[in-house]
C-alpha cells in the first residue's frame, strides 16, 4: 500500500493541474473553427489533411480542424457521446452502414437544407447517381459523399502468365474464376485461387445487387423500417454453397473480415482478390508483381446483371451550431465537392470522383486511358442497368446486421452450419435487430 504522503502528494498535484487547466487563458481566435471528425488512417489520413489544408488556404474566414477519432464505429460513438454533452463536432464522417441511424437520429442538419439555408449553390444533379442515391431521401441529399468505392476484382498478372492464362483478360464469370483458379493452383503459380475482403459487403450485399437480387424487402429498406432480409433465398444459398465447396482445393480461401485478407493477395498466395476499389492506390505502391483489375464476376443466366453498390463514408453535419459556423461548414463541403478537388481526391486516394463533371474531366485528360484500373469501378457502377436492387441498402443498425451476416458466413465456411441453415439464422437474427431498431425509432 502506498504511504499516505505519496497519496497526498498526488492528490495535491491533481488539484494543482485542475486549477491550472481552468485558469489557462484561451487564445483569441481570428478565424471561425470548424471541427471535422473522421476515421481515415495512414495515407488516407494524409490525403484528408491535405484536402483540408487546401480549403483553409483558399480563404481566410474559416479554419477546418480535422481530427481522427479512430475506426468508423469509434468515430460515430465519439460523435454521439459528444452530441449528448452538446459538444458535437460540426462535421462527422460516418460509414455507409450507419446511414439509416443518422437519417433517423434527429441530430443532423441535412446537407441539402444546410446549403439552402446558407445560400450556397450546389448542382445536385451533377452527383453520380449510385452515390447520391445511397445517401438521399425523397431525392434530397442528406450527407456529403466523401470517400466512396465499390468492390472490384484484382488479379495477379504474373500468376496468370505462369499458369498459361492471358494476363490481359481477367475472369468475367464465376465459372471462369473456378477454372482459372484450378489452372493457377495446378501450375503452381499460386497456392490459392481467390480471396475476399469485407465478406458481407463483397460476397452478399454486392453479389445480390450485381445479379439484380433483393437483399431485403421494401426495396432494400428504402421504403420503410419494417423491411426483412431476403438473403436466404435461392441466389444467396447458391452463392454461399459454391464458395463453401471451393474451399476444398483452395480455390477460395477465406481470410477474415474487413481487410485482413489483403496480405493473401499482396504476398502472392491468392491469385485473385475481391476488395474495395479504394485499394488501387495502396496496391500501386505496395504490390511487387504486375496486377490488373476486372469487374465483379457474374454467374450468368438465369440472372441478369445490374450494377454494384458503393461503400465508404459520407460527411454528416450536426445540428445546433450557430449560423456563422454553419456557413463555414457549408463552404467547406461545397469546396470538397467541386470538380478540381474531386479529381485530386480520386487520383490521390483511388476513391471515386462523385460528380459527373469530374469524371468527364478525368476522361478528357486521358486519365482512364493511362490508368484503366481506375475506371473499373466507374464502369461497374454506371454501365450496368440500375435497378431497385442495386441502388443500395438502407437498414437500421446495419452495422450489427453486417456483423451477424459475417458471423454466419464464418459458421458456414467452417462447416458448422449448412449454407441454408446459416443464412436462415442470419436472416432471423437480422430481422430481430430490425424490429428492435424500428421500435426504438418509433416517433
Amino acid at each position, binding site marked *: 500500500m502506498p504511504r*499516505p504522503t505519496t*497519496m*497526498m502528494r*498526488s*492528490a495535491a498535484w*491533481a488539484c494543482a493541474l485542475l486549477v491550472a487547466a481552468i485558469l489557462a487563458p484561451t487564445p483569441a481566435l481570428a478565424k471561425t473553427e470548424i471541427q471535422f471528425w473522421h476515421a481515415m488512417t495512414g495515407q488516407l489520413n494524409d490525403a484528408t489533411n491535405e484536402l483540408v489544408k487546401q480549403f483553409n488556404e483558399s480563404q481566410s474566414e474559416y479554419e477546418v480542424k480535422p481530427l481522427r477519432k479512430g475506426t468508423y*464505429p469509434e468515430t460515430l*460513438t465519439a460523435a*454521439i457521446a459528444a*452530441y*449528448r454533452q452538446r459538444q458535437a463536432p460540426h462535421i462527422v464522417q460516418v460509414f455507409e452502414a450507419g446511414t439509416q*441511424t443518422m437519417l433517423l*437520429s*434527429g*441530430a443532423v442538419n441535412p446537407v441539402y437544407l444546410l446549403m439552402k439555408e446558407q445560400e450556397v449553390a450546389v448542382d445536385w444533379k451533377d452527383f453520380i447517381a449510385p452515390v447520391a442515391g445511397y445517401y438521399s431521401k425523397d431525392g434530397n441529399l442528406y450527407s456529403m459523399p466523401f470517400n466512396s468505392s465499390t468492390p472490384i476484382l484484382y488479379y495477379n498478372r504474373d500468376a496468370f502468365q505462369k499458369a498459361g492464362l492471358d494476363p490481359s483478360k481477367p475472369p468475367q464469370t464465376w465459372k471462369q474464376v473456378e477454372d482459372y483458379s484450378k489452372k493457377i493452383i495446378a501450375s503452381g503459380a499460386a497456392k490459392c485461387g481467390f480471396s475476399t475482403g469485407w465478406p458481407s459487403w463483397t460476397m452478399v450485399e454486392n453479389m445480390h445487387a450485381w445479379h439484380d437480387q433483393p437483399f431485403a424487402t421494401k426495396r432494400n429498406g428504402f421504403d420503410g423500417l419494417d423491411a426483412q432480409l431476403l438473403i436466404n433465398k435461392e441466389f444467396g444459398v447458391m452463392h454461399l454453397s459454391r464458395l463453401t465447396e471451393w474451399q476444398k482445393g483452395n480455390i477460395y480461401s*477465406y*481470410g*477474415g*473480415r474487413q481487410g*485482413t*485478407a489483403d*496480405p*493473401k493477395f499482396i*504476398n502472392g*498466395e491468392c491469385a485473385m482478390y475481391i476488395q474495395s476499389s479504394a485499394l488501387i492506390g495502396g496496391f500501386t505502391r505496395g504490390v511487387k508483381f504486375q496486377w490488373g483489375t476486372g469487374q465483379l464476376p457474374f454467374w450468368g443466366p438465369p440472372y441478369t446483371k445490374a450494377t454494384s453498390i458503393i461503400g465508404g463514408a459520407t460527411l454528416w453535419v450536426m445540428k445546433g451550431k450557430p449560423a456563422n459556423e454553419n456557413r463555414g461548414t457549408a463552404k467547406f463541403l461545397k469546396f470538397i465537392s467541386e470538380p478540381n478537388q474531386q479529381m485530386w481526391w480520386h487520383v490521390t486516394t483511388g476513391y471515386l470522383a462523385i460528380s459527373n463533371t469530374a469524371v468527364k474531366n478525368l476522361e478528357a485528360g486521358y486519365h482512364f486511358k493511362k490508368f484503366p484500373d481506375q475506371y473499373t469501378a466507374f464502369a461497374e457502377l454506371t454501365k450496368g442497368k440500375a435497378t431497385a436492387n442495386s441502388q443500395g441498402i438502407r437498414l437500421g*443498425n446495419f*452495422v*450489427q446486421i453486417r*456483423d451477424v451476416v*459475417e*458471423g*454466419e458466413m*464464418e*459458421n458456414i*465456411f*467452417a462447416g*458448422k452450419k449448412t449454407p441454408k441453415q446459416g443464412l436462415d439464422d442470419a436472416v432471423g*437474427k437480422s430481422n430481430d*435487430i430490425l424490429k*428492435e431498431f424500428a*421500435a*426504438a*425509432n418509433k416517433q
Partner: protein
Amino acid sequence: MQRTVFRNRYLPYLLVFPQMVVTVLFFFWPALKSLQLSLYRVSPFGDSMTFVGLANFAKLLGDGEYYRSVANSFVFAGGVTILAVGGSLLMAALATQKIRGLSVYRTLILWPYGVAPAVAGIIFLFIFHPTYGILPYVLSFITAYEFNWLLKGWIAMTLVIVSTAWTHLGYNIAFYVAGLLAIPGAVLEAADVDGAGPLRRFASIIFPLVSPITFYLVTLNMVFAFFESFGVIDAVTKGGPGDATMIMVYKLYKDGFIGLNLGSSGAQSVILMALVIGLTMLQFKYAEKKVTYR
C-alpha cells in the same frame, strides 16, 4: 499486525477521500447508470428514452446467443485463471531458486504486466495470424494442419486464453515470489531432514502456506478475465469466428457501442455485474474455508 492510530479525527477520512471519489465516479456512478439504462429502450443519440421495464432482460434470457456468450465467458475465465495462476506459481517457484542472475530473471518475468492488453493482442496477432503471422508460416513447413483460427473456433479461443493469461502472469508471479520468500527456511529444512522430496514439500508445506495468495489471485484473475479482457479480444478475434470467442463483456460492448442498442447493453452489464459479484461471494463462502492464514 501493527495497529495504526490517527491522532487527528479527520485525517483518515481525508486520506480515503481521493480513493472514494474515484470509486464513486468511475464505479458506482456508471453501475447505477447501467442499471437505469437497462430498464429503457434508448434511441442511438439518446434523445428518446422509453421505459420498457424488464423487457431488455427478458429478451436476453430468451436468446440462445446470449447463453452462448455466457458459456464462452466461463470457458474463457476458467482457462485464463487456471493458466495464469498455475503458470505463475510454477514460474515463481523457479524464480525463487538459487540461480545466477536471479534479479534479471525476476525483472524480465514482471515485464508482461506492463504491456497493455490491446498491445499484447497485437503482438500475438503478429505471431499467430493465419495470413501474416510468423508462426503459421513456420508451421506450414512442418505440418499440413492449418492453424486457421479465422475459421476454427477452438483455436481462436485457445489463442485469446493464452494471450490474456500471458498478460496476467507478471502480476501473479510478483505475489507468489513474495509469498514463497516469506516461507521460513527452517520449516523447509525440517521437512528435508524428515526425508520429504520436492513434491511432498510442495504439497504439504509450500502450497498450504501460499494458499491465501492463491485464493486472492484466483478471485482477482477471474474477475479480471470477466471484465477487463476486452482489449485482447478486440485486438485479436473481435468475438469471431462466428461467435466462438464472444464473451459477455465483448458482446455488451458490441451491442452497445457498435449496435447502439444501449438498453440491451445496460441489461447485459447488470447481469455480468451480478454474476461476478455472485461468483466472488461463492468463493469467499466456500473456497476461503480451505485457506490457511498465518
